[in-house]
């Protein structure tokens, strides 16, 4: 096994500056089999250290799926504690991705890295401290400090906007109303996890879906991410002030057949875990559907925006594809390869 995480490859065939086809090659690590034979509690602990990104979302999805399979009810206080952990992680992950994953002209600026470090410290400490009000102010200040970075990204996108044109597609957002259909599909077919799709749908998940962004391409999704960051900060404030967690942040259900299912609205979108327990309450089957698999499905929303898009040629086309991938927020680095049929 290679220990180095491979990249997500977006291989575009161009002719006369238009994308004829796009091939998405994912390294697709699926560690689900390592959960087999564990207790639900062991699975939740393991999920928290098996993933480099969103470990809290992965761990709580595993825990909630296990509790659902066992018919365990979660009280309101525990639910709020989990919601705070999930929202804090979501905010930190989104900020980090926004800075580190942006395909810019230069590496992230040192002052932005410092602001990010402050923000990550605040979101890490907030769920574990009695001084959450101070932490949230530190977080808000760090986010304000990163505002210029967002403005630079938006300016770069707007400056290039007239040079390319995506294939128009109305967005089709995955939401908590789809949970039952996803659960049914993922338990019915083990291969669903690798390339999830619902009948007649081209589902997108992530910040744009949470914000119900009204279509558009790169700029609209970038703006949706900023709006979602602000909304997540507001949701943390509301939770700390005694309010309710956002609907659908963490939902779970169990079935008499032994399956337990959980969905979490993580930074990159809806994350699903399903597990089946045997009579000894050990895990007999485990399935995970990650948000990246919807957005980067071979026939998914990114591919549909790119097929038929007018994106130019060479290095400029490569950068445009990578920036579009950035707003769909893959959990691994996306690299575009451009094959120009005019020069093939």
């Amino acid at each position, binding site marked *: 096994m290679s220990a180095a995480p491979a990249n997500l490859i977006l291989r575009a065939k161009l002719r006369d500056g238009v994308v004829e086809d796009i091939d998405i090659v994912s390294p697709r690590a699926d560690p689900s089999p390592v959960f087999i034979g564990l207790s639900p509690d062991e699975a939740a602990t393991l999920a928290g250290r098996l*993933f480099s990104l969103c470990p809290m979302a992965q761990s709580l999805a595993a825990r909630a799926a296990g509790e659902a399979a066992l018919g365990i009810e979660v009280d309101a206080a525990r639910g709020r504690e989990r919601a705070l952990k999930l929202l804090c992680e979501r905010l930190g992950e989104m900020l980090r991705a926004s800075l580190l994953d942006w395909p810019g002209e230069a590496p992230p600026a040192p002052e932005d890295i410092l602001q990010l470090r402050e923000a990550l410290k605040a979101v890490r400490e907030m769920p574990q401290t009695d001084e959450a009000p101070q932490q949230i102010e530190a977080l808000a200040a760090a986010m304000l400090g990163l505002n210029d970075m967002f403005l630079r990204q938006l300016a770069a996108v707007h400056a290039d906007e007239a040079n390319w044109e995506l294939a128009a597609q109305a967005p089709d957002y995955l939401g908590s109303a789809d949970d039952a259909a996803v659960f049914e599909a993922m338990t019915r077919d083990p291969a669903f996890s690798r390339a999830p799709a619902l009948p007649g749908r081209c589902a997108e998940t992530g910040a744009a879906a949470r914000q119900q962004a009204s279509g558009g391409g790169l700029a609209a999704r970038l703006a949706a991410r900023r709006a979602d960051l602000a909304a997540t900060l507001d949701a943390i404030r509301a939770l700390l002030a005694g309010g309710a967690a956002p609907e659908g942040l963490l939902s779970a259900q169990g079935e008499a057949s032994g399956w337990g299912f959980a969905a979490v609205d993580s930074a990159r979108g809806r994350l699903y875990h399903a597990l089946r327990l045997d009579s000894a309450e050990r895990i007999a089957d485990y399935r995970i559907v990650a948000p990246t698999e919807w957005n980067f499905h071979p026939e998914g929303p990114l591919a549909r925006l790119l097929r038929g898009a007018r994106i130019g040629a060479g290095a400029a086309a490569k950068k445009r594809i990578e920036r579009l991938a950035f707003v769909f927020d893959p959990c691994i680095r996306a690299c575009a390869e451009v094959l120009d049929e005019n020069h093939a």
Partner: protein
Amino acid sequence: MCLAIPVQVTELLEGDMARVTLDGVRKTISLALVDDVKPGDYVILHVGYALNKIDPEEAEATLALLAEAGQLQGAGA
């Protein structure tokens, strides 16, 4: 899904950078987002940045599990 592959820091460099060995290949990474990393520590990496430090026992256990998952992938799972 991005697996958390622990890498061991072999040397601290100037400017909050460090050298790690990943898959037998020496690589330079940034420590700008983490505190108190020393040579010998294990960190989790993402796009050239250490995201967090983890204890050696946890790192060994995770590496063993990832190796197992790798064999499963190799078998077409």
